[in-house]
């Protein structure tokens, strides 16, 4: 401590800007500064800039000077029936997919909470999908569903004699997207639930067994209370993520057939990078951001509750 004070004194006594800058009380902020600068340039500035753009009439395709139009694009987005249709599609996909992930993830967690041969290897295999890239999963399922030579179609043809085009109907296409998304993310739910399951004290189950409590009663009174906040966390986290679903849908169906699987994420992309309605896409993106912030607040609330429970 004394030696560093001496060094600092020597630096100060040598004088100059560098010495002032490297003074001990400034070293902390100095070390954090690069990260803050990057954060500002890469996140905060574009965020503010695009928010500002949503109040102007501007297309990135043209070199015209933007006109201030106030809330016109927010009004247009909110009153656009297409936007509401895309929100509806997104809601259907989100609710179906998150429900499927929850059920499958929960069942997998129950399975893996027990000890059995090859458990570790199987657990690794089950976790693999969520480590894959979204693009790879999209391409994989596209080939899987391909009606002429795809595995699903070939399997169905063995029974019906006819090829099966899952993505040929709106309902089939939504099911196809939900299966792909659920396949990828159920392991994530499983991991969270598994963490809850292993944290249940063994003596509670032993006591319940002595009381001859049924399996359902044991689950209701012991297991579920321990995992319910983790389940809520999983639901919220997966809802937020699925709400922004883009990659899998774009590769698998490109929003089709027609617009049956076009999520709000795909629609924002079209507005921004295909139609080049920059301001309108920015306004819609901020409405989506608002929805995600609401969901995130719920998520943080659940996290805090879980932390209190653990304490």
């Amino acid at each position: 401590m004394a030696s560093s004070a001496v060094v600092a004194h020597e630096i100060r006594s040598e004088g100059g800007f560098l010495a002032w800058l490297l003074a001990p009380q400034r070293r902390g902020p100095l070390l954090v500064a690069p990260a803050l600068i990057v954060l500002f340039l890469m996140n905060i500035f574009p965020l503010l800039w695009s928010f500002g753009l949503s109040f102007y009439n501007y297309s990135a395709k043209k070199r015209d000077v933007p006109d201030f139009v106030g809330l016109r694009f927010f009004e247009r987005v909110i009153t656009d029936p297409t936007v509401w249709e895309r929100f509806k599609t997104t809601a259907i996909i989100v609710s179906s997919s998150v429900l499927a992930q929850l059920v499958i993830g929960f069942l997998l967690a129950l399975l893996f909470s027990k000890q059995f041969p090859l458990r570790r290897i199987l657990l690794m295999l089950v976790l693999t999908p969520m480590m894959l890239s979204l693009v790879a999963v999209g391409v994989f399922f596209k080939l899987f569903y391909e009606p002429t030579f795809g595995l699903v179609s070939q399997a169905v043809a063995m029974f019906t004699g006819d090829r099966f085009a899952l993505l040929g109907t709106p309902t089939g296409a939504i099911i196809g997207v939900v299966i792909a998304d659920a396949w990828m993310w159920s392991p994530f739910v499983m991991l969270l639930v598994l963490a809850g399951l292993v944290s249940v004290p063994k003596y509670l189950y032993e006591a319940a067994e002595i009381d001859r409590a049924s399996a359902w009663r044991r689950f209701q009174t012991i297991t579920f209370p321990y995992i319910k906040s983790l389940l809520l966390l999983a639901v919220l986290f997966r809802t937020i993520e699925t709400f922004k679903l883009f990659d899998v849908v774009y590769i698998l169906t490109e929003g089709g057939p027609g617009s049956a699987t076009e999520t709000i994420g795909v629609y924002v992309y079209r507005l921004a990078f295909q139609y080049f309605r920059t301001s309108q896409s920015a306004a819609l993106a901020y409405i989506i951001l608002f929805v995600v912030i609401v969901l995130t607040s719920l998520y943080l609330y659940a996290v805090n509750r879980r932390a209190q429970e653990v304490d």
Partner: protein
Amino acid sequence: MKRSWEGWLYGVSLVAVAAGSLMLAPGQANAADITITMAAPDWPPTRFMKEEFDRSFKSASGNNVKLEMDYIPWPSFYERVAASLTSGEQKYQMIVTDSQWLGSFVDGGYYKDLTEEIKKDPELTAIMNDLHPALISAYSTYPNKSPQFIKDNPFPAPDTHYYGFPQFPDTYVTFYRKDLFCNETEAKKFQESFNQKLPCTYEDWQDVDWTTYENIGKHFMRKKGDPLGDGVADDDFFGISYQAGKSYDFSTMQVNAFIWQHGGEIWDETRQPEAQAEGVVNSETNVKAFEHYLSMLQYMPPVARTGQADIFVIQDLYMQGKTATTIDWVGLGEPVLDPKTSRVHDKSAFGPAPGLRKEDGTIDRTGNIGGQPFVLTTWNSPEVDAAALEVVKWWLKPETQKKFAANGGQSGLMSVMADPEYDSLRPWNRAHKEMLDWQRDVWHVPEFFELLTQQQEEFDKAITGQITAQEALDSIARFQQQTLEDAGRIE
């Protein structure tokens, strides 16, 4: 003494260097290193251009001109080019562009108007006068002028602005399995079923209309184990295929052909602001044409029912031996003949695309042009512009064009196509040449992507059986009318 001797030596050396520099200066002052970066889709026609450039390009100015290709995969080509242009990075000096993008990027101030440069340069003027009018119309003019207008008004046409030159002119033709179409058993069965000859030779395919094509579709639908040609089908086999995909323009290109052949119209951008969308796009003729298009999907592989039968999927299914024939772009022909990628590489032949038979017995094969022009960007310096125009002249020289045609490309120069040798350079050349006279193009206005995306979506709904042809075209007409009125293109 020593110091003065050294000083003398330095003095002599300096004089010698200065003299040498003066002697070399005139030649070196004119020679400059110019690098042209071109945005190009990653496929054989642009790969060949780069290879041939490195082999044979010599700059007349003496400059050291380099052509650097930024190869971009097809699916993200538009987004990548648009992002580069709109970001202001000014990365590209030349761009291979789809003809539909002209309006968007001309209005945005990114593509250079070359009218004056062409007028001033007799070599470029000669090239324009040798290009097929359909190509000048689609690839070069904005606001768009019709092929007929270009035919009637050679360069420089009044009130016309020219932007691009053909990098790769493309048309769709028929790819077919000659082992099946020239098979005696199949021919006999086809004759019995439809009282028609099964087309085998190029000349036979010149007489194929949509009715015959539909019959071909019906005839070649086979289940696994059914007789096929001289053997049996090793898997389910399908008669025909054409574009029926939701992505980009992968159904519009084929639907437009049906519409034009039936005598219908799309919104006519050359007659702004009088031309209307409502009443034209959803006319009775257009509905009949679209219903005709939809009626043959049942003879295609089941992927057509999902709206994902894009140009690559139908090409792949043909190459894997799943279909008897397909209608696809010439640009996708080369892999069909490659044993590494195609199971039918030694069994394939090519003919003109089918069309609609008129009352006088002739066949109307009007189709939507494919391929791409290449353009110059507006931020180039005069030296770069001059070098880029040299590249244009080199690419459109008959020698280069013949080499291109011999390596899977196509020429847009009428003098090159008139060469008797041209037809035999690649097996599809004759069909391409015949189809070129029938080509028209979709819109070039800046709103094209919105018009296209909405249209593709509605076509896709009809293709997948969610709505009728009438409902699809009504929705398209309403949307186009509104969008184009908002843009001030319809009054």
